């Protein structure tokens, strides 16, 4: 059965205040890197999955992202899947 590599990106919904992002943004000024207009912190989750085909892999990973990796009350997520080399 083929393997697929996947990445799930989890970000706070735009309407949710991100104090950690704000803190990092203010630190970027102190580092002397000017011009940072926006900084929001999320998560990247790397996965490898064995599945009969890519659409089945995607289906399982969407369930995982929606029910475990992200909390839809506060977070959005996106998924990329590709065959393992």
């Amino acid at each position, binding site marked *: 059965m083929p393997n697929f590599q996947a990445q799930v990106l989890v970000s*706070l919904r735009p309407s*949710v*205040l*991100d*104090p*950690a992002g704000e*803190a990092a943004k203010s630190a970027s000024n102190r580092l002397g890197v000017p011009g940072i207009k926006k900084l929001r912190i999320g998560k990247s989750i790397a996965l490898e999955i064995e599945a009969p085909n890519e659409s089945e892999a995607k289906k399982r990973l969407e369930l995982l992202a929606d029910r*475990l*990796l992200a*909390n839809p*009350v*506060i977070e959005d997520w996106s998924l990329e899947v590709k065959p393992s080399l």
Partner: protein
Amino acid sequence: MAIGIVVFPGSNCDRDVRWATEGCLGYPTRFLWHETRDLTGIEAIVLPGGFSYGDYLRCGAIARFAPVLQSIVDFVGEGRKVLGICNGFQVLTELGLLPGALIKNRDLHFICDNTLLKVSSRRTGWFSERQIGEEFSLPIAHGEGRYHCSDETLLQLQEDDSIALRYVSNPNGSVADIAGVTNKEGNVLGLMPHPERACDPITGGIDGRTILETLLT
């Protein structure tokens, strides 16, 4: 009949709750290991504070899948009482037994303090002994206690009269000053403040007692 206190790996207020319910109030109390499914003889359940499963992924996100919680969902369906305190509140929102979510405090710090609260609803048994607007003080101790929900959920909470407690002076940026909510049925209560830390007069105040007393009444 006893009060059950769920113990997850990383719970750290489980013994404080036991001291409050058993030591201060004299109620029979048992620990419930997170892997059990057996709630025989348990009348009410407390999900205590702490860092269940290290707070990995998100606070309460992994605890939600503990075997004991499968049984607690049925327990709640039977109309029995469940109180989630701090991390326990986070677990209840992740599980979907309470609406909303608890996220990082607005002001970049962990808050450990006594905080003034006011009763916002007397609809459920938890606060029926108090008056609307009545103020009392409980300790809070959290880094991720900012209650967040959508505008629609907030309207629903208001419509259902499910906002149980509000902060008098909002310490963490919570929507609508929310410190505690109940489910629509009223048998599940989630609180960020710690009533179990305000039950023994020698450690400062007994304002938390009435909340824990309602577990067995």
